[in-house]
């Protein structure tokens, strides 16, 4: 099956906004080409992780090879390369686009183009991909394909005269899509004779075989017995197996330019075979790697601490294991007088952070305290040196600092124009600088702002969604560091500094944040048998304070012969709940309190 001529290969991906039906369409393509029999079809075949399925989003990308006999009577190999659908994973998206010659742009025929889609379409255009617009969900009553076509033409400048109306759910339009893939997407360049260059666009960790690497052969050929060199990591491996995803892994003897496949080579961690790295032959290496490789850099940081100090070794082991399959996850030990031993972890974004936290709790059975997310600050010291700070509690004292710089992002919000006002207000509140606003159609606009990343990684996304009833979408990218008048806001609980609650805020907002923070903590920390002062302070100056009055009564009214079992069970349950709290000094603090800074507006 690998003797397919390059001219009969088509490599493509699907670009779509969450919920616009990408997974359903992918499933439908697999079914219609007979790649997966209907009876073997799990819903949303490409989204394999349990978490992904629950959230209805794609985190890990995957690929599938389909055999398709076109109207011209020829048999084609269609490789569908899936792309993740979240802003946290835009680098992965760019690599999978690089592995394709074309893309299906799937747009909901009633909802239109969203910011996320737009960003990915631009990426696809930059990569010279042939784009086939597909209008999905045309079977739904609200569908208005003509309006959406106009919108796509207006926004992206794509010719929509040949846009394909479809319903991935019913299968309508799917044969037309398959024909369009063959007709309109160009075959890969025939570079079989050149030295091997294969682009890694995904990998995952298999506990039995080591890392399984997904790649697209750009040039040359790969044989099963070859020894390969990964050009960025500089490591060489003897191959255990190569093959294609059909969609189950099927070993083959060789793969040539244009093909998409996987390899297993007893690679220990995904960090050794990073997305974007180039595979070549150790014996006859390509003169240069493929362009565009970068290491995914964490942008958001938080502390992870086990509620039960005894679980620290378990947490370390779990993170070690997760990192085998998640190259973007970074962590290092962190010790806090308040929290004991834990880890400072770096993530691509908030979603990535939530996913890791959930996996740790669910798959490894850990009880965790997660501190509020932070970004990396660049602190210029008076002695001329610069330090990067990912933990607010470690921000050097003011007398040592010359200035603080914080990361800024370019933010694009795509919204119905009725929500302009509220979104602009939100961006102003979050220290955003207005750049421009464009009407894309008569009733939809893009808002363009530059604002500090720190303001985006808190509850910005949730706020945007709730203020626009879910209609707005957003996209952001890092544009560099800017100096700002920032201060470290400490929280003192019962007169002891609570490191994990320390935040870095703009001086102008410090008072308001401090005030709401202590109020929120008062709400979240249960009363205890003594009065607990809660203060927010900049340096030694207290700017806001509250106190939780002492609990005066916590007692079982009666307990006679028959009551004992029930009362004991009640106390046992409460004792277990208490274990999920973290003792900070004498105060028991529940998990939610550590995220208080994210909930100030609720």
């Amino acid at each position: 099956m690998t003797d397919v001529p390059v001219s009969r290969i088509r490599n493509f991906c699907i670009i779509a906004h969450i919920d616009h039906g990408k997974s359903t369409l992918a499933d439908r393509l697999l079914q219609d080409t007979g790649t997966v029999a209907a009876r073997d079809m799990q819903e949303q075949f490409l989204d394999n992780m349990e978490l992904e399925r629950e959230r209805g989003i794609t985190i890990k990308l995957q690929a599938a090879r389909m055999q398709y006999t076109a109207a011209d009577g020829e048999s084609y190999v269609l490789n569908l390369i899936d792309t993740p659908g979240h802003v946290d994973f835009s680098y992965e998206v760019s690599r999978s686009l690089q592995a394709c010659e074309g893309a299906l742009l799937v747009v909901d025929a009633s909802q239109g183009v969203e910011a996320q889609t737009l960003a990915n379409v631009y990426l696809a255009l930059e990569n010279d991909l042939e784009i086939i617009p597909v209008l999905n969900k045309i079977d739904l009553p609200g569908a208005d394909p003509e309006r959406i076509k106009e919108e796509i033409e207006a926004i992206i400048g794509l010719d929509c005269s040949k846009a394909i109306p479809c319903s991935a759910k019913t299968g309508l339009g799917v044969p037309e899509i398959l024909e369009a893939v063959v007709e309109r997407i160009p075959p890969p360049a025939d570079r079989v004779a050149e030295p091997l260059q294969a682009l890694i666009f995904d990998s995952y960790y298999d506990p039995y075989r080591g890392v399984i690497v997904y790649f697209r052969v750009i040039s040359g050929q790969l044989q099963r017995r070859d020894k390969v060199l990964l050009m960025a990591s500089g490591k060489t491996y003897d191959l255990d197996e190569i093959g294609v995803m059909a969609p189950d892994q099927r070993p083959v003897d060789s793969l040539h330019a244009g093909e998409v496949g996987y390899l297993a080579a007893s690679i220990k961690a995904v960090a050794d075979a990073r997305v974007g790295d180039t595979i070549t032959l150790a014996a006859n290496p390509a003169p240069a790697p493929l362009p565009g490789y970068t290491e995914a850099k964490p942008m958001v940081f938080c502390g992870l601490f086990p509620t039960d100090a005894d679980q620290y070794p378990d947490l370390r082991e779990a993170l070690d294991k997760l990192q085998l399959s998640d190259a973007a996850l970074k962590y290092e030990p962190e010790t806090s007088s308040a929290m004991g031993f834990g880890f400072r972890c770096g993530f691509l974004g908030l979603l990535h952070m939530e996913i890791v936290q959930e996996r740790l709790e669910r798959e490894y059975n850990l009880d965790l305290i997660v501190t509020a997310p932070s970004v990396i600050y660049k602190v210029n010291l008076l002695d001329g040196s610069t330090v990067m700070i990912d933990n607010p509690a470690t921000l050097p004292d003011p007398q040592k600092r010359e200035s603080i710089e914080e990361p800024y992002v370019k933010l694009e919000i795509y919204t119905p124009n009725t929500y302009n006002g509220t979104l602009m207000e939100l961006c102003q509140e979050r220290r955003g600088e207005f750049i421009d606003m464009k009407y894309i159609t008569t009733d939809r606009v893009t808002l363009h702002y530059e604002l500090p990343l720190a303001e985006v990684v808190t509850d910005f996304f949730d706020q945007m969604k709730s203020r626009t009833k879910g209609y707005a979408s957003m996209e952001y990218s890092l544009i560099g560091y800017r100096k700002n008048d920032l201060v470290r806001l400490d929280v003192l609980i019962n007169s002891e500094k609570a490191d994990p609650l320390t935040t870095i805020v703009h001086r102008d907002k410090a008072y308001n944040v401090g005030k709401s923070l202590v109020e929120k903590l008062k709400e979240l920390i249960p009363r205890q048998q003594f009065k607990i002062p809660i203060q927010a302070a900049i340096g030694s100056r207290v700017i806001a304070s509250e106190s939780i009055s002492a609990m005066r009564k916590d007692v079982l009214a009666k307990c006679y012969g028959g009551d004992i079992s029930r009362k004991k069970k009640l106390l046992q349950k409460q004792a277990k709940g208490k274990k999920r709290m973290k003792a900070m000094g004498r105060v028991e603090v529940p998990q939610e309190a550590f995220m208080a800074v994210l909930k100030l507006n609720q």
Partner: protein
Amino acid sequence: MSPPPRSAYLHIPFCHRRCFYCDFPVVPLGDRATGQPGAPGAASIAAYLQLLHREIAAAPAGPPLSTVYLGGGTPSLLTPAQVGELLEALRRRFGLAPAAEISLELDPASFDERRLAGYLAAGITRVSLGGQSFDDAVLAALGRRHRGADLAEAAGWLERARHRGALASWSLDLIQAAPGESLAGWRQQLRRAVATGAPHLSVYDLTIEPGTAFARRLERGQLELPEADAAADRMDLTWAELTAAGYGRYEISNYAFPGHASRHNRVYWSGAGWWGFGMGATAAPWGERQARPRTRAAYAAWLESGQGQGGAAPAPTAGMPLDERLLVGLRRREGVRLPALLTAAGFAPAERRQALAELRRRLEPWLADRLLLEEGPRWRLADPAGLALSNGVLRELIGWWDERTAPGRRSSGAVPPPPAPVPAAAAG
């Protein structure tokens, strides 16, 4: 091994009606029930008493009883003769010790002075009067059948009997923190209770138990309970008023003049065993509790099957588990002798020292604030502040015990099993 029980509880499930807060195993007979032959429910009562007699007669032998408690329900729905027959049955099976404390629960408006005389003649020495409140509005809100005047009248009969020497002691129950009652209203209740002369007062916070009328109303947002601080104010006031009136607080909810503490209830808090008879009754003759079925039919079937105490004496067990002994023991003014309890629970001397050190560490904030006091071998909660917060200490103790006894926990040196391998992200 526990010594054999010297106490017995008899459950009389019949009531006029079920009060809004009640989750006891009771059988409401309607407001017109009197317990007299021919009155509504009389046949039910007679049938139930047959079962109760059967259970008592089938119990294994034991030493004479020094305390007996007839609780309910409303045991004043029994005639004095029926009460007398039950006591006679206990006397036949176990014997009654000289000066035994024999308590009967009575509800106002369910007996008169003549009937009281009949109970006393039948052998009752102590009465527990389910007064709850003198305030008609509160009584109505609680779903009680009687009125404040009924309570005052009944209290008068009891106090007169006590002064005559016909009744050794009596107790009045009050419900604290009833919905809608002001702090001033509660002070009024306490003063009226003191004025009755009752030598013993049980003051219980209204507790909303699952399945009760109140629980349903609370769920629907139709019941407003006092805020935490308001409830604390009431508890503080109770302590202040009653201690000023000469009562001693010998347990979290119980106050008595010297010599009038309930001997029977002390048994529950001491960890000693007791016999229990009747539907829904809990027995713990050897320390481990055995609950009886909570409906009459199930209770009858259970008796029929020969389970429980019938036939051969059950194998004596190790007694009440340590966490329960602490749970009940720390409710008392005198607290517990902790080293002795640890020894009884099987701790060797070295283990005992270690356990005491660990408990001191866990309970350090409580000890430091003098809410919990360690006085030689005795650990007790300070009165009133420590008792008012006792759950905090109990959670620590119970948490400690659960960790020690849970299978595979660290105390046994076992390491938790390693987590499962990460599931592969692709179908493979």
